[in-house]
């Protein structure tokens, strides 16, 4: 089919068969109608020009079976309040949640007995599909003035079993005024079986709250992982996130941050280390909707083999966003002769008195630096690893060593494994 249309309704029809017949059936049916009306985005849509979802049609996806299949899951942090999911379903036997401060809660959605979430007017097809099919996910609430005693760790383990499975997890995060939390999501593929993961997350930070949100992805070679995250940052609140992408057939993160009130801040960093024919996309939109809002975005990719990355990063400054300050940098190391980066930084500015800057570069490893290291006895492979690790390290700056130390170990292990 080669119609010049920006959405594909047919591609979603097989998913209509999967609608769970539960208490939320009416809301699910309505969401499904919306998804079908919108259709899956095609490459004719501007935001999906370099990313095709046609591969999804090759499989007959089913929803995951009953929970309890996982005996253990590796940890990212030694100490954390932890929920574990297998193909999107919570594994209650592996839940470790200690005492939390007043007004705070961490639970999986099956335990939290969710009401039907409302479908936003501008919801995407993927958001609607998620609402139609979701089975599980996590909800995190932190009471006003409270700081979580431990980081929260969400372990998403995927593709352990054969067969084509789709999971549609939801994440709901709400921090009260001046609350503080550290949230780590780790997504790991344990096999190469086909998976279609469609994550949706909504994050609300009340006045003066701070959320540190680390997302580490190493999906399997048969996994398409799509995620949409919407963040609202209130007055003097701060959202800081680091997305680390270490593989998967197609991983695409779509992040919208609204700096909704004076003094709101967003720090968005991304580190990518890809190989073979992996593709990882990042689509960000940071909306400065109020005066004195600040955003910093530092994205760095190291692309080996024939890997591909699409970055669309938009900073928007609304009328009235006086003294807003936004900066964006996207640098890419092309390690493989056939690796590709498409980068589209974009500024949309509707106020005079603002500062905004963006820059994008791509290139190869610095030959002079490589020779310098080798002349000191470092073997070529080690010299390359060291230079790549140091290139990516800039994205880790400003994050607590509690997070960056295990990250560094993951990056080093990945570098040793792929020998870029």
């Amino acid at each position, binding site marked *: 089919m080669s119609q010049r249309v920006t959405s594909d309704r047919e591609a979603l029809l097989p998913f209509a068969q999967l609608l769970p017949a539960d208490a939320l059936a009416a809301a699910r049916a309505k969401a499904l109608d919306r998804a079908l009306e919108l259709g899956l985005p095609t490459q004719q849509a501007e935001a999906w020009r370099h990313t095709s979802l046609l591969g999804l049609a090759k499989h007959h996806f089913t929803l995951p079976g009953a929970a309890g299949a996982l005996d253990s899951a590796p940890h990212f942090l030694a100490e954390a309040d932890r929920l574990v999911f297998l193909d999107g379903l919570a594994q209650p036997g592996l839940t470790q949640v200690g005492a939390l401060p007043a007004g705070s809660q961490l639970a999986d959605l099956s335990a939290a007995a969710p009401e039907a979430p409302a479908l936003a007017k501008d919801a995407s097809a993927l958001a609607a599909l998620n609402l139609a099919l979701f089975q599980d996910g996590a909800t995190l609430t932190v009471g006003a003035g409270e700081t979580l005693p431990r980081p929260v760790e969400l372990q998403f383990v995927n593709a352990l079993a054969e067969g084509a499975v789709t999971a549609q997890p939801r994440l709901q995060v709400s921090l009260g005024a001046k609350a503080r939390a550290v949230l780590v999501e780790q997504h790991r593929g344990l096999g190469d079986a086909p998976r279609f993961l469609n994550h949706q997350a909504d994050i609300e930070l009340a006045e003066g709250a701070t959320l540190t949100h680390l997302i580490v992805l190493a999906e399997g070679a048969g996994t398409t992982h799509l995620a949409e995250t919407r963040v609202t940052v209130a007055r003097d609140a701060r959202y800081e996130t680091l997305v680390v992408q270490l593989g998967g057939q197609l991983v695409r993160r779509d992040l919208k941050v609204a700096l909704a009130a004076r003094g709101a801040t967003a720090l968005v960093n991304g580190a990518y280390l890809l190989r073979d024919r992996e593709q990882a996309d990042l689509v960000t939109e940071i909306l400065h909707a109020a005066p004195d809002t600040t955003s910093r975005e530092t994205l760095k990719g190291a692309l080996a083999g024939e890997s591909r990355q699409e970055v669309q990063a938009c900073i928007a400054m609304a009328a009235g966003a006086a003294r807003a300050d936004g900066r964006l940098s996207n640098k890419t190391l092309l390690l493989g002769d056939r690796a590709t980066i498409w980068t589209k930084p974009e500024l949309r500015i509707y106020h005079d008195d603002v500062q905004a800057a963006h820059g994008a570069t791509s290139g190869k490893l*610095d*030959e*002079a*630096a490589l*020779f*310098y*290291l*080798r*002349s*000191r*006895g*470092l*073997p*070529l492979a*080690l*010299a390359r690893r*060291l*230079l790549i*690790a*140091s*290139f990516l*390290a*800039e994205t880790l700056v400003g994050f607590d060593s509690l997070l960056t130390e295990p990250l560094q170990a993951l990056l080093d292990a990945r570098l040793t494994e792929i020998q870029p």
Partner: protein
Amino acid sequence: MLEIKNLHATVDGKAIIKGLDLTLPDGEVHAIMGPNGSGKSTLSYVLAGRPGYAVTEGQVLLDGEDLLALEPEERAAKGLFLAFQYPVEIPGVANTTFLKEAANAVRVARGQKPYDAMAFVKLLRAKTKELGMQDEMLKRAVNVGFSGGEKKRNEMLQMAVLEPTLAILDETDSGLDIDALKVVADAVNAMRSPKRSFLVITHYQRLLDHIVPDRIHILAGGRIRQSGGKELALELEAKGYAAFVEAA
């Protein structure tokens, strides 16, 4: 012992070294002096194995082994060290990490035990003190934000840690004030030994007041034009390079 026989080398297809012969016995310090464009830096890069520097003819032996057949890291393991004229900045790599990776890479290649972390820190502390370097320079990224003098001291620190048998100093004196020059010279003199030889490449006689060479070679147009004792530097200072280049 380093033996260079009838060496010809090109950079980007352009002939720079044109039939160079040189023998540097163990334990000796030889200086190479020459005007701009004479091939001094090219010689140092060819010896260290920089990609893009092609040898078209001739032979280089280090302790009887064909040096030109080795990768740059293998040359370092074999005992060759090049102090760069322009040390390279490497953002994101801590100087200590770099020094330790380098020292242990050559130690392992030489069949020695790698340093344990504590012993290495102790060694570094002692060496930086000798070189008048701040400990803080070990924590910073390699050469990033270092002054010219600090970069050259850092080269000397690497040399001390890597314990080469052949050290090539490529215009290590350029951009140094007299105090820094003395520090560099002291570092070299402290490392002089019957098992270690130095090839000191310089424009000026000044450095050779502090590192007194056994022999001096004048390089011009890609060849050694004249060799002699340390008095040759004074003659050169008085007459200028032109006399030697024209005489050849």
